[in-house]
């Protein structure tokens, strides 16, 4: 598309054309109205003069007879730029006046008419036009009095010329203005297009230029920039995930492969093969779990799970998780307690349950009192082995926290602990994917909250802080009906 073609196609230019047409129409009608009114006024003026003269001359004819009238007409006809006068007999013979010729039939009808005429003293042979009035006098004489219409014609000419010029000016100014505006808009749009093309080509850090005028294009650019910001964050997240997958899934895959190879090379008995295969299945199950957790984190972080939210009671979730994990904690020599008050929240129940389950699993795994911290031979108190799940409302936030009294996480490591695949030194020996806290954090972020890690003196408190349901008060639409159980 040529530059001009592009210009002509802009909305600004098209709008200009519409306005141009409207303005031209307006100017034309204004001038038309003016011209028509002027013409009417002039015609009125002429007829007033002619009527007055007709009256005067009729009176002279009445008082002084034909001779007086002829004299008077001759006198009047001699004045410069005078009106037209013609006095005829019954059979059309001219007696007095300054009219040389008339269109045929004018003298035959009385009253007003417009006619071509020629003066007696005219040098050129051109016809003029006049507005004339014919009166029937007594004894068959007819008197014509009229006035030249040249003035009216000239005035009309001036108006027509003015119309031409003004329309020309409107068109030129309009098209010029349209091109100016369209080019201005086009330049900014082109700048935006250029940036978006660079972004599409892969440079995600590009941002649209935002002017200072705060007009609609600036607002659009600002919004697009916010969108780009989000896309970039998502892309960075995705890249991080794929980097981590590459790094941390390849390790167990390699291990899996090595074991299979080793079994193939060294196993002699069926029992050995069986053992190797069982280990392989175990390892691949672990891989699948890691993979699922990664996908879930990615989905939570991208906000896809937002569609699946409803209102429920956070305490109910905490009680459910407590019920599920209590025997496990007890078997591990810990005690799991729960302290809740009904707190309505809006969210993805499944994800919040899983996040809380992860925190509880972590507490059971890593929250055992450190043996070194206890005096030699001292009996570890029951309190130190307690894990507490707590749900409460604090201001406009709902806090779901899990507190243990284990070694905790040093303040410097806390931020680090939430990252994907990070397994702190203390936990290396325990099984786990290193994704538990990352998932909890992603779930909190999805709900517009955060995961907080704090010191429990000693131990660790992990808190999911999410916004409380607005205006819920005591109204609590807790769903006690579970998802229909299909395998039943």
């Amino acid at each position, binding site marked *: 598309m040529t530059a001009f073609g592009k210009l002509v196609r802009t909305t600004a230019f098209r709008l200009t054309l519409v306005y141009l047409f409207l303005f031209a129409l307006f100017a034309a009608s204004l001038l038309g109205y003016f011209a028509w009114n002027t013409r009417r006024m002039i015609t009125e003026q002429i007829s007033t003069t002619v009527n007055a003269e007709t009256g005067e001359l009729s009176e002279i004819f009445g008082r002084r007879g034909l001779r007086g009238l002829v004299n008077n007409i001759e006198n009047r006809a001699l004045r410069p730029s005078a009106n037209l006068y013609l006095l005829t007999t019954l059979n059309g013979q001219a007696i007095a006046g300054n009219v040389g010729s008339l269109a045929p039939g004018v003298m035959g009808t009385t009253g007003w008419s417009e006619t071509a005429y020629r003066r007696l003293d005219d040098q050129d042979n051109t016809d003029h036009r006049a507005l004339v009035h014919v009166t029937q006098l007594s004894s068959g004489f007819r008197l014509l009095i009229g006035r030249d219409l040249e003035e009216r014609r000239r005035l009309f000419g001036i108006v027509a010329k003015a119309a031409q010029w003004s329309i020309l000016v409107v068109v030129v100014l309009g098209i010029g203005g349209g091109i100016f505006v369209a080019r201005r808009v086009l330049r900014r749009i082109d700048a935006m297009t250029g940036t978006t093309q660079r972004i599409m080509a892969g440079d995600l850090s590009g941002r649209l230029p935002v002017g200072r005028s705060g007009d609609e294009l600036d607002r659009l650019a600002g919004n697009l920039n916010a969108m780009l910001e989000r896309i970039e964050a998502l892309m960075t997240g995705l890249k991080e995930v794929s980097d981590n997958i590459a790094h941390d899934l390849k390790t167990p895959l390699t291990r899996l492969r090595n074991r299979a190879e080793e079994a193939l090379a060294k196993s002699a008995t069926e029992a050995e093969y069986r053992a190797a295969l069982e280990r392989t299945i175990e390892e691949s199950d672990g891989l699948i779990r890691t993979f699922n957790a990664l996908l879930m984190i990615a989905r939570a972080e991208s906000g896809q799970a937002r569609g699946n939210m409803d209102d429920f009671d956070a305490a109910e979730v905490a009680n459910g998780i407590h019920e599920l994990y209590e025997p496990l904690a007890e078997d591990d020599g810990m005690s799991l307690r729960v302290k809740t008050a009904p707190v309505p929240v809006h969210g993805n129940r499944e994800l919040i349950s899983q996040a809380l389950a992860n925190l509880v699993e972590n507490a059971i795994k890593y929250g055992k009192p450190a043996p070194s911290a206890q005096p030699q031979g001292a009996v570890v108190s029951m309190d130190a082995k307690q894990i507490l799940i707590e749900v409460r409302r604090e201001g406009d936030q709902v806090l779901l926290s899990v507190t243990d009294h284990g070694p905790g996480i040093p303040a410097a490591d806390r931020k680090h602990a939430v990252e994907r695949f990070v397994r702190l030194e203390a936990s290396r020996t325990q099984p786990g994917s290193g994704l538990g806290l990352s998932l909890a954090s992603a779930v909190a972020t999805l709900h517009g909250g955060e995961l907080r890690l704090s010191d429990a003196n000693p131990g660790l408190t992990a808190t999911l802080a999410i916004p409380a349901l607005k205006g819920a008060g005591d109204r609590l639409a807790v769903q006690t009906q579970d998802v229909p159980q*299909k*395998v039943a």
Partner: protein
Amino acid sequence: MRLLIIEDDRESADYLVKAFREVGHIADLAGDGEEGLSLAQSGDYDVLVVDRMLPKRDGLSLIGALREKGNHTPVLILSALGQVDDRIKGLRAGGDDYLPKPYSFAELLARVEVLSRRHGGPAEETTYRVGDLELDRLSHRVARGKDELTLQPREFRLLEYLMKHAGQVVTRTMLLENVWDYHFDPQTNVIDVHISRLRSKIDKGFERPLLHTIRGAGYMIRDGIR
């Protein structure tokens, strides 16, 4: 049991057919959605195993078409999409169970057997009996022989589910889904601990154990050794 497997990946389909035949079931195979639909309509199958993403006609639309024609054969959906919302979508489309890939054959077999039994089985009973163990679903009473047993509410639901599927393998995931309504995988052996508690209540001190661990698959409640 007659099964129809609708799966486009030849290798996993052949594996499934072979594996089902080895445990004594009859399994047919369809390679795409259209073929699957016509076979499912003409054949008399107990359970359909349908891959969600199929050539020619996807799994969900196949199920929709079947249900529309009044065919209510239980369907288990296999899918690489394992998230909760995908699962809900699958069940809404008319599926009866949903198993994300990759799955273990033991898990698939257990679920398929439960589905087939439900289809042909008798109406819901109010009392379940396995050996001398008796569970009354209305009064929430459990007794073994003459001994009344005291169970926690969740233990009751766990036992109820196991007894409802007495003689069938029930996997850990099935228990987590149906007794607790969670659809995530715990990283720990949390279900095993609940089972061992339940076992200590119903089997401890009795000569014949009823609650059995099926290695590599899950659990089963049954009387005696078959």
